[in-house]
């Protein structure tokens, strides 16, 4: 396998753009109520902002932004947030995943809106963690420089 020639222009642009992609992805997740977007789309863009640096700078240097061992725990935390919202509705006296029984105030419609937001955050984190973890596992053991 031939050695990867590092290109300084690509490296500089990737380092500059990657935080802005992450910020726009957070905007897409949180504005899923008012415009097309939501959890899955924002989670994929978050993963794209991490994978951009993995492709541009190699695996060793980009561990400084997002370590290799953070992928799978972040995915599990996302699924736990989703499950926890459903269990909180169950514990507070209602049915599983019925957001009316969540212990936040404001009436039925506002509680459903807040429940949708919590669930979308969980989905976004899970998708980001797992996509980065799949990429890192596919490159395990290869001399990637």
């Amino acid at each position, binding site marked *: 396998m031939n050695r990867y020639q590092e290109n300084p222009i690509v490296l500089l642009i990737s380092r500059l753009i990657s935080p802005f992609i992450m910020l726009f992805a957070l905007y897409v997740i949180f504005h*899923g109520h008012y415009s097309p977007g*939501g959890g899955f789309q924002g989670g994929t863009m978050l993963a794209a902002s991490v994978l951009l640096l993995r492709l541009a700078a190699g695996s060793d240097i980009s561990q400084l932004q997002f370590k290799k061992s953070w992928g799978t725990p972040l995915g599990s935390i996302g*699924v736990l947030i989703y499950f926890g919202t459903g269990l909180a509705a169950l514990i507070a006296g209602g049915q599983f995943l019925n957001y009316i029984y969540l212990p936040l105030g404001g009436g039925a419609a506002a509680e459903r809106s807040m429940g949708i937001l919590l669930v979308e955050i969980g989905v976004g984190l*899970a998708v980001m963690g797992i996509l980065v973890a*799949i990429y890192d596992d596919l490159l395990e*053991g290869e001399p990637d420089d």
Partner: protein
Amino acid sequence: MRVVNWILLLIFTGLMIFASLGLPDRGKIEAPLNRETSAANTPNAPSYYITHAYEDAHTPNIVTVILADYRGFDTLGEETVILAAGLICLLLLRRRKASDE
């Protein structure tokens, strides 16, 4: 053997095009997909979601309300599928130092 594969491919495509001639015209409001009530006089699911999404959840985006509120259980199952796929890749490809190859 490859000739048999080519013939099967063309037969399959011809069968799909013939089957699609029976589908209703795309995009008309009178199609059974887009009506207000179904054939058994029960409310049709997509038009119920469009008319009741804002008063139930105060959210203008109908797709997010369906995905996370009306059909939230399916989204939970799908997240479990993503987590399972990540764990499968981890188990297949992370090698320990002792048992190499």
